[in-house]
C-alpha cells in the first residue's frame, strides 16, 4: 500500500513538473506573440491532431521509424557481437579501439556528410543511427563482460556446465543491467541522430524532410508537432523494449 502511494506521489510530482514546463512554454509563446516564431502548446497540439488524421503523416513517420529502428537494432546485434569478441580476446579489443574511439569522437554531421557522398539519402538514417548507437552498446556490454564474477565461471568449470547453459543462466543475468542500460540510452540517441541525418540529407517522405520544410516556411507549430511525434516514437520504442527485456529476464530468472 505504501509503495503504491509512493508511486502515485511520484507520478503526481512528474505531472506537476510537466504542467509547470507547459505553463512556461505558454507564457513565452504569449510574450513572443507570434505563432510563426514560437507556437504555443495549444497550437502544437492542434497541428499534431490535424496531422494525425492525414495518411501521409503515418507514412512519413513509418518511413523514419523503420529506418531508425533498423539502424538501432543492427547496432544492438553488431555491438553485442563485437563486445563478446573483445571480451574474449584482448587483441580484438585493441584492434577495435581506434574505430570505436573515432566513431565516439567524430561529430555526427561529419559522418552524415560522408555518408551522403557514399550512400543513398534514403538509407542515411539507418547508417547514422547504427553508427551512433554502436559504441554505446559495445562499451556497456564490454564493461558488463569484464565485470562478470570469475568465481561463477570457476564454479561452471568445476561442474562441467555446458557453454549454452553457462551463457544463458550464468552470464546473461549478470549482464542484465548493462543490456538494459545500453538499450535504454541507445533508443534516444538513435532517434536524435537519425532525425538529424534526415534533416541534412532530406530524403523524400521522411520526418527530417518535414522538419526541414517547417524551417523553410517558419512553421514552428509543425516543427513542434513533428518533434513531439518523434519523441513519442522514441519513448514508446524504449518502453516496449524495456518491457520485452523485463519479461525475458524475469522468465529466465524465475524458472525452475
Amino acid at each position, binding site marked *: 500500500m505504501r509503495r503504491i502511494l509512493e508511486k502515485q506521489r511520484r507520478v503526481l510530482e512528474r505531472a506537476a513538473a510537466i504542467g509547470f514546463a507547459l505553463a512556461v512554454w505558454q507564457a513565452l509563446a504569449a510574450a513572443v506573440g507570434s505563432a510563426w516564431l514560437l507556437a504555443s502548446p495549444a497550437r502544437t497540439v492542434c497541428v499534431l491532431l490535424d496531422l494525425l488524421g492525414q495518411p501521409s503523416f503515418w507514412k512519413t513517420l513509418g518511413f523514419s521509424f523503420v529506418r531508425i529502428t533498423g539502424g538501432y537494432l543492427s547496432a544492438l546485434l553488431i555491438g553485442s557481437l563485437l563486445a563478446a569478441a573483445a571480451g574474449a580476446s584482448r587483441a580484438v579489443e585493441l584492434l577495435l579501439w581506434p574505430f570505436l574511439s573515432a566513431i565516439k569522437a567524430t561529430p555526427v554531421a561529419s559522418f552524415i556528410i560522408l555518408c551522403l557522398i557514399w550512400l543513398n539519402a534514403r538509407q542515411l538514417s539507418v547508417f547514422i543511427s547504427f553508427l551512433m548507437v554502436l559504441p554505446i552498446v559495445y562499451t556497456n556490454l564490454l564493461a558488463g563482460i569484464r565485470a562478470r564474477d570469475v568465481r561463477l565461471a*570457476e564454479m561452471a568449470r*568445476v561442474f562441467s556446465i555446458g557453454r549454452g547453459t553457462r551463457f544463458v*543462466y*550464468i552470464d546473461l*543475468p549478470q549482464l542484465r543491467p548493462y543490456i538494459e542500460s545500453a538499450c535504454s540510452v541507445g533508443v534516444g540517441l538513435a532517434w536524435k541522430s537519425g532525425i538529424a541525418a534526415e534533416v541534412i540529407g532530406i530524403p523524400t517522405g521522411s520526418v527530417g524532410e518535414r522538419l526541414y520544410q517547417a524551417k523553410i516556411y517558419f512553421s514552428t507549430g509543425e516543427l513542434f508537432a513533428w518533434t513531439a511525434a518523434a519523441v513519442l516514437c522514441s519513448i514508446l520504442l524504449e518502453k516496449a523494449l524495456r518491457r520485452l527485456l523485463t519479461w525475458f529476464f524475469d522468465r529466465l530468472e*524465475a*524458472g*525452475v
Partner: protein
Amino acid sequence: MSIVMDRVSKSFGERRVLREVSLALPDAGAVCLMAPSGAGKTTLARILLGLETPDAGTVAGVPARTAAVFQEDRLCERLTVCKNIRIACPRLSPQAVQAHLDEVGLSEYLRAPAGKLSGGQKRRAAIVRAVAADPAFLVLDEPFTGLDEETHARVIEYLRARTAGRSVLLITHDPRDAEALGAKTMALSAE
C-alpha cells in the same frame, strides 16, 4: 584408479603455499584434510579441481565428473534455488531437486531467488548443488560454515547418505566433522 597427487608445489609470487605435497585419495570414501589457516588446503583443492596449475609435481586420476562446495557459496543470486541446482545437474527434475531440498530443510525455497536466502540457507543450497550433481569426486571446502547445530547435524546426515561410494575430500578445522562423516583424517603442515 585413485586420485594421486605427487610432489606438488605451488607458489603465488614470492609466497610458497605448497611444497612437494603428495597424497592419494581413494575411489570411494571420504578423506578429511586438516591444517591451520594459510597452510594451502584450498590451493590444494583448487589444484585437484583443475583451477590452478602446480608449479611442480603431477596430479593424476581426477575423474571428469567433479563438484565442489567452495568456501563462498558461488550461487547465481538472481536465479531460483531450483535453477541454481539444475544448471549443474540438468538431468535432475524439479521434483528430484525438491527431494534433496527437503532433506536439508530447504523445502520452502525451491522457487526462491538464491539472493534472498540467508547465509546458512545459501550454504545448504550450495551443498545440495554439489551432491545432486552426482560427481565421482566431490570437494567440500569448509562446507558447514554458518550452520547452526541442528542444521549442521541434518546436513552431515544428508552427506553421509548421499555421498556413499564417492571420493570425497573434506576440508575443515573441526575433527568432529571428519568423525561424523567417517572420513580418514590427513594433516597438511603449514609451509
